[in-house]
């Protein structure tokens, strides 16, 4: 109601001004910048970890470092064991589905199951290389990947979460060696998480920089003001955890359990849910100042903040993957190596390992109603290949008060499915064994092994089904001057052309009324012009 009152006040002012009037008349390339990591946050810790004898080292492995950490931070691993960063498992609050990286099949690399050793280079643990990982191990929690401030710690891509402990070639056959990190130095320089720490995994999802999310990539390590008004060191210099806050290592703000509309207002300790992961946690539901157009605040009930304030994604100079067609994978060159084709911009558009790709930069999002819930197409859900499969069908609609219109990156592609079992396939892509797809390029073997890993028996007949997966866009928040303008939606064929259930001025109209109205106006004009012409003719004839 405050909005309404403000508007009334403004209008009253306008009314009073006419009164007065009447009376008066009497009538980029940020990955390289490692050294000033400390500038991201002032050193506020009361502990200098380099003075601790426990961290003197030398350390042979990651778990050895963790054991040292746990001597003081006795509860840390237990806390992390409860988080989805560790379990990769989330229960869908709306329907009980088992979600999380461990359970879903996406339309990028597919599934974690049967490919653990590669995928878990982004797990906050050590040694998850197969289905037998011990989730109760405290020593296997990787403290350093999140708390390294030196920039020198990196997990080995195929090391099941471990860094390289000896110089190791990566990618295989490239001749380039990954050096082992100086674990003691890293351990002595731990600190709060930074954009780089989180970005180590979240900016590189889907197999490389910028591939997966579209609004998260390496450009956000040192973003300019134009790219992200909150994270830019030129402005607020937020780290990820400035918003993704939470106690006891439980980081808030997740796609799996999204608050699509946070009506609890600006978060004040003790009064609200205490999370800062929504825009409204800091900005509230009436974020625009009274000096701005009062209609702006009237949009917050139906329009998510990011819909206007993230005008495009992949704005940091990196392309994001928009299309991935696994069905064309498997082409090898004369040496039996997977073929790689790059386009004029140097982007890989074909990989013998993965198939065809399409990329996008400065992409206008797609807009959909969203109430924070999603229904996933999981392994075992019926997929018959006749229609495009929504991997995550987001809930919500125009009549649902919890829904707003949100921006999404919609990833599309074709991926394997089991025709006999009528389900998306679990594919064993990575591994040194004979059945891994990237060894032999034999889909049947790869599906057989993949499906076996989830306890199913491959029917023997596979195909490719077109899928889409929607990713809510929330990052890369532009300065207000770059926000989406009114007419980009309030126009015919605008951004919200496909949104149903709302009447939008400028977009919608009653066609026949417009036709009738303009026809009548035109006829009236012709009539008076005709009448006038006749008068003129009669007049000149007489004189």
């Amino acid at each position, binding site marked *: 109601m405050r909005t309404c009152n403000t508007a009334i006040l403004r209008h009253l002012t306008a009314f009073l001004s006419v009164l007065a009037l009447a009376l008066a008349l009497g009538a980029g390339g940020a990955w390289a910048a490692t050294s000033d990591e400390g500038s991201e946050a002032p050193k506020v810790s009361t502990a200098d970890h380099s003075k601790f004898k426990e961290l003197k080292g030398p350390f042979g492995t990651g778990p050895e470092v963790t054991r040292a950490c746990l001597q003081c931070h006795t509860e840390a691993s237990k806390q992390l064991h409860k988080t989805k960063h560790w379990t990769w498992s989330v229960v869908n609050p709306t329907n009980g589905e088992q979600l999380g990286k461990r359970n879903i099949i996406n339309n990028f690399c597919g599934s974690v199951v049967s490919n653990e050793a590669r995928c878990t280079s982004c797990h906050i643990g050590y040694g998850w290389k197969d289905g037998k990982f011990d989730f109760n191990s405290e020593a296997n929690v990787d403290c350093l990947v999140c708390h390294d401030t030196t920039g020198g710690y990196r997990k080995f891509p195929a090391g099941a979460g471990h860094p390289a402990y000896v110089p190791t070639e990566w990618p295989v056959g490239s001749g380039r060696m990954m050096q082992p990190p100086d674990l003691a130095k890293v351990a002595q320089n731990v600190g709060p998480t930074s954009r780089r720490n989180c970005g180590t995994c979240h900016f590189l999802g889907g197999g490389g920089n910028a591939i997966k999310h579209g609004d998260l990539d390496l450009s956000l390590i040192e973003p300019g003001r134009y790219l992200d008004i909150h994270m830019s060191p030129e402005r607020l210099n937020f780290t990820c955890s400035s918003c993704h806050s939470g106690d006891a290592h439980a980081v808030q703000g997740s796609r799996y359990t999204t608050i699509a509309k946070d009506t609890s207002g600006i978060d004040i300790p003790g009064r609200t849910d205490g999370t800062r992961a929504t825009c409204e946690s800091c900005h509230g539901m009436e974020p625009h100042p009274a000096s701005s157009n009062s209609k702006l605040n*009237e949009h917050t009930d139906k329009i998510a903040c990011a819909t206007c304030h993230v005008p495009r994604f992949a704005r940091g100079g990196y392309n994001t993957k928009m299309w991935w067609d696994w069905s064309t994978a498997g082409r090898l060159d004369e040496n039996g190596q997977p073929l790689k084709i790059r386009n004029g911009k140097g982007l890989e558009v074909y990989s013998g390992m993965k198939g065809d790709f399409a990329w996008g930069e400065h992409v206008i999002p797609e807009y959909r109603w969203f109430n924070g819930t999603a229904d996933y197409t999981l392994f075992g859900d019926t997929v018959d290949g006749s229609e495009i499969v929504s991997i995550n069908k987001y809930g919500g609609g125009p009549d649902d008060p919890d829904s707003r219109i949100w921006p999404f990156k919609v990833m599309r592609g074709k991926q394997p499915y089991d025709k006999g079992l009528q389900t998306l396939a679990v594919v064993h892509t990575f591994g040194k064994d004979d059945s891994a797809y990237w060894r032999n390029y034999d889909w049947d073997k790869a599906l057989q092994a993949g499906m076996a890993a989830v306890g199913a028996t491959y029917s023997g007949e596979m195909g490719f089904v077109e899928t889409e997966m929607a990713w809510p866009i929330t990052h890369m928040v532009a300065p207000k001057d770059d926000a989406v303008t*009114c007419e980009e939606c*309030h126009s015919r064929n605008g951004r919200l052309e496909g949104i149903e259930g*709302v*009447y939008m001025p400028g977009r919608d109209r009653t066609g026949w009324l417009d036709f009738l*109205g303009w026809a009548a106006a035109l006829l009236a004009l012709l009539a008076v012009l005709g*009448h006038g012409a006749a*008068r003129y003719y009669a007049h000149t004839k007489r004189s």
Partner: protein
Amino acid sequence: MEATRIYIFKRFERFWHWAQAALIIVMGVTGFEIHGTYSLLGYESAQEVHTTAAWLLIGLWVFAIFWHFTTGEWRQYIPTVDKLMAMLRYYLTGIFSDAPHPFRPTTLTKHNPLQRLAYLFVKLIINPAIWISGLLYLYYSAWPALGLDGLSLAAVAFVHTVAAFLMLLFFVVHVYFATTGHTPTSHIKAMITGYEEV
């Protein structure tokens, strides 16, 4: 016939007329832009100008209504059939043969019977329709608080558009009929100076 000048439109009336004319033109131009008919100022500017002009016009109407009732001028719009047919005949035939104008305005009867009907229609049908639908449109977000949940914005927008087209029709015809006085400019001069030659 010797021209005589009579004082018909008082100062407030003339101010009201021209201010209203300007505001209606501004509202028509910006309104049809908001409607998506063309792009001129840009949607946001069009919306802001339209809303500001709306409040100015409402303010003006409040004054005008007050003026009409306190001065008794509202009686000028009471419909009459006296000379109605004569007026129609004049516009259809007489005007082409320099026939004398069947209506002579006086201070007490400023408007010919057709004008009375037209202005009454504007005041009782078009204005309220455009005003009420426009305010509802403007306060769309307050509907739930006002207990108006059942309303449909599409319906309100429809009524507003119908009223806008009626106003456009009135505008076209009115501007032309301004030239049909004793001489082509006598009505217009009267609205500027207050004096009409009859």
